[in-house]
């Protein structure tokens, strides 16, 4: 069949053409592979790495805060939480319903969790419950086979073992708010917490540490397959404080007999703060996971202001505790001598105004020591007339009043020492003589914080060294001889007079704090009571004989006491303010006595972590 042969020949030719075409295309495919796998290999290899490797941040462990003896004040503990990984939960709602049978989980929370589960990728854990105790974790662990999708996790969580006793000093950490975001990626971690208050906030930089990184292999949807490389970050620095936790706890406990009070105990030479407490406090642990609205409202609306660090942020008229400064100003100006007596008839008439002494009948003839010990007001009215406000104010400022002490804490307030200049610029009014009288007894415009009063007392007790308070323990710091604190230029003899007067407050039977004296030999204290008016006592009140105790709490006087101990070789200064506590001698002095006794028993000055040489000899 020749035709068939022709046909065969045609097919052969065309098959050859097609075959050649195929060979060409095959070569083309080979070339394409060569291009991708050889020529562009590096580029694609890089893209492949980018694709699969994801850099994740590891939150650093927050630095621990310790007291002077190494007691942990803010630490990290393993907290347990339950998370749900929805891809492992065929029926999330059923699992959560079962969990509700085991743990107190609110229906609202279940709704929230289910909502979150719906929105997140199925392999990302959603927190179901936080802050579980060990028993709760065990309960869940045992029942895990019946709870598909649930997992328990342990993660370090900030913990404040002393709770309210230190709440104001240490502060607390909390979730990063939009205002806190600084672009630092660490802050964007969902569970990251930063210092919100107190030292936690002040020392955020030191405590935070630096983030570690974890290179993880992820697949196309972002699920972590395994960790390739891990670079641990640096944990935050350990921070030491000058506080003596035992004393701090005692102080807080002692203050809690009052509705609202604050106290400071400090070293008169080194300025180290041994205790710094405000009552009432709050539990900072409540804030770590986010405080409930109810609790928060309760704290906000409490008239005792539990959120305020009153020891540094409460501004009170210092009342009679201010009298030492007026007296010193008088001695320094030479307008009074130690022995000159001034008559107190119960009041002083100045123009049309009558300025009363707290003692209705008057004190009679008072010298300086008596005026301090018995807290005569008229004596100081007379001094104020002789001195004028500016000299009193200048003396007050030299002892640390009227400005922030600069302690490393947030929330410190400056108080106020008024003078002519202040009144003219701030109020646009001239100063009145009568205002000097009021100021001379620490009333009127004069405001001070308990910390300032403690500093003032320390400077009086140490013979005029301008110590500044410090709460940070500087480790490895060169030993600082404390006498290098700047000297207040003041006649040492005058200081001596004031110190003796303060001693009389507790040692003389007519001294206002005689009943609160320390009997223990060698532990005796010196001091000064103060009672500062919150509400002006009107003539009508005086006539009606309304007693302070009859007034509503918020109108009662503040009770104050400043003191130091021991009497012979003073070392510790203390200031106590009882808000609306009534009289300084009845409400504040007993507390100060207990605190000064406690600090002497504990002798924190002898444990010297702050690298400051104690000084045994008074100046």
């Amino acid at each position, binding site marked *: 069949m020749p*035709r*068939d042969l*022709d*046909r*065969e020949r*045609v*097919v*052969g030719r*065309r*098959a050859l053409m*097609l*075959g050649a075409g*195929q060979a060409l*295309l*095959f070569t083309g*495919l*080979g070339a*394409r*592979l*060569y291009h*991708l*796998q*050889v020529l*562009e*290999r590096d*580029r*694609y*290899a890089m*893209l*492949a790495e980018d*694709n*699969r490797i994801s850099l994740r941040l590891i939150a650093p462990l927050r630095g621990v805060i310790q007291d002077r003896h190494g007691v942990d004040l803010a630490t990290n503990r393993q907290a347990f939480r339950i998370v749900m990984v929805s891809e492992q939960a065929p029926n999330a709602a059923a699992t959560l319903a079962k969990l509700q049978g085991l743990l107190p989980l609110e229906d609202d929370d279940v709704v929230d969790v289910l909502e979150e589960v719906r929105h997140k990728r199925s392999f990302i854990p959603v927190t179901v419950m936080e802050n579980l105790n060990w028993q709760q974790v065990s309960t869940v662990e045992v029942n895990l086979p019946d709870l598909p999708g649930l997992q328990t996790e342990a993660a370090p969580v900030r913990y404040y073992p002393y709770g309210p006793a230190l709440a104001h000093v240490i502060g607390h950490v909390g979730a990063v708010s939009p205002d806190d975001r600084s672009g630092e990626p660490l802050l964007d971690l969902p569970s990251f917490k930063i210092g919100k208050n107190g030292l936690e906030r002040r020392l955020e930089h030191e405590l935070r540490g630096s983030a570690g990184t974890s290179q993880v*292999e*992820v*697949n*196309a*949807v972002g699920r972590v*397959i395994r960790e390739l490389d891990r670079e641990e970050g640096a944990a935050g620095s350990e921070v030491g404080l000058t506080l003596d936790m035992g004393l701090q706890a005692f102080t807080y406990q002692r203050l809690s007999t009052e509705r609202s009070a604050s106290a400071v105990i400090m070293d008169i030479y080194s300025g180290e703060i041994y205790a710094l407490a405000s009552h009432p406090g709050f539990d900072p642990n409540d804030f770590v996971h986010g405080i409930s609205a109810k609790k928060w409202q309760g704290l906000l609306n409490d008239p005792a202001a539990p959120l305020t660090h009153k020891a540094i942020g409460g501004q009170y008229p210092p009342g009679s505790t201010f009298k030492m400064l007026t007296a010193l100003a008088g001695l320094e100006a030479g307008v009074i001598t130690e022995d000159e007596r001034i008559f107190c008839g119960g009041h002083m008439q100045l123009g049309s105004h009558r300025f009363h002494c707290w003692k209705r009948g008057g004190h009679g003839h008072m010298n300086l020591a008596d005026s301090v010990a018995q807290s005569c007001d008229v004596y100081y009215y007379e001094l104020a007339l002789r001195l004028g406000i500016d000299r009193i104010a200048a003396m007050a400022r030299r002892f640390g009043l009227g400005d922030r002490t600069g302690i490393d804490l947030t929330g410190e307030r400056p108080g106020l020492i008024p003078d002519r200049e202040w009144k003219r610029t701030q109020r646009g009014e001239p100063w009145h003589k009568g205002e000097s009288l009021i100021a001379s007894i620490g009333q009127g415009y004069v405001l001070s914080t308990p910390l300032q009063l403690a500093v003032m007392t320390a400077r009086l007790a140490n013979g005029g060294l301008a110590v500044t308070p410090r709460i940070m323990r500087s480790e490895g710091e060169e030993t600082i001889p404390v006498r290098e604190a700047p000297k207040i230029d003041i006649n040492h003899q005058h200081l001596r007079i004031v110190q003796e007067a303060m001693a009389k407050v507790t040692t003389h039977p007519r001294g206002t704090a005689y009943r609160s004296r320390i009997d223990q030999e060698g532990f005796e204290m010196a001091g000064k009571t103060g009672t500062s008016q919150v509400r002006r006592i009107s003539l009508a009140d005086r006539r009606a004989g309304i007693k302070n105790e009859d007034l509503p709490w918020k109108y009662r006087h503040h009770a104050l006491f400043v003191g130091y101990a021991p009497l012979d070789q003073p070392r510790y200064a203390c200031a106590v303010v009882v808000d609306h506590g009534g009289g300084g001698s009845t409400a504040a002095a007993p507390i100060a006595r207990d605190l000064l006794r406690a600090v002497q028993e504990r002798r924190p000055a002898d444990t010297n972590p702050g690298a400051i040489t104690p000084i045994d000899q008074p100046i």
Partner: protein
Amino acid sequence: MSLAEIGGRDSDWHPLRRILGISPVLLLLVVAIGGIGVVALYSAAGGSMDPWASRHAVRLGMGVLGMLVIALIDLRYWFRFAFVIYGAGLLGLVAVAVIGEMGGGAQRWLQIGPLQIQPSEFMKIAVILVLARYYHTQTLESVARWRSLIVPGILIAMPVALVLKQPDLGTSIMIAAGGGAIIFLAGVQLWKFGLGVALAGVAIPVIWTQLHDYQKQRVLTFINPESDPLGAGYHIAQSKIALGSGGVSGKGFLQGTQSHLNFLPEKQTDFIFTLWAEEWGLIGALVILLLYGIVLVYGIWLGHRCRNHFGRLLALGLAINLFLYLAVNISMVTGLIPVVGAPLPLISYGGTAMLAVMAGFGLMMAVSINRDTQIERHPRRLPGFD
């Protein structure tokens, strides 16, 4: 040679001699390539026979058996039943279209008991079979007539239209290309063939309007990959990254990061070549091309060796069909053409495509066994019935 002589040889076809006539080279190549498939699918599952590799191996074994059965059936039966097979395939496509219509969506397969069958895959073979038969009955003169262009044109157009409707762009292109290749081989004048291709070209705008939005999107994305970096363009980009990062020697068995981390879509089916090339590198990829290259050369040689026109066209057509699978799949995964669903024969996971390819190999073997058999232009009797 005389008719009697041929008839005499015909009677010599003892079953044992037929079995001995099976090409060991082709059998070996099929098993080798299928074995690569098992290895690749084992890796695709992250180092597990489940769920793909074990079933692929079972299918490979069953496929080899089926392939041998097909090979042992006399080529004249296949010649005789070519139209029946084609008709059955077309019926299957119509059934798919009807079911798709009822289901209100895309449909490519028929559910027969536990089996899912994709008639379009078998149609690739059936079209070649039926066209080989059609042109076997034509002389070179009759091939020159318009009629011998129109009838095959209709035979191709019907399944192409039905598959396009499913919609399955890749498969319909392959059916059209496979059929076109037979027409070309049959000896249609080149200018006519060119005209046909041009007509098909004119049909492109018509086809475009028939395309679903996602298919249009794929083509547009291919033209401008940046337009959809996370959609269709993402697949191509990821495939290129996986391939390219494999380098010359690959990342090693089970070490393919891109594929194992699910950056690679459809890694067990259409993108299995990418996985293989990532783990075994350029060398591994060229091994696959080489194995298939041998198969293709064998097919062309077979077509050249075959003494009957039907077997000749069939062998060449099947080789081209195989080539189309490879070319479309590898071009796709290397980013040369848009993503169209096209498996890599014997390696991609998927039942019907594999069985269809194996059936093709069976037919190729049948051609090999019967390469000296004379088939009458219009046979009236069947072997074994005389």
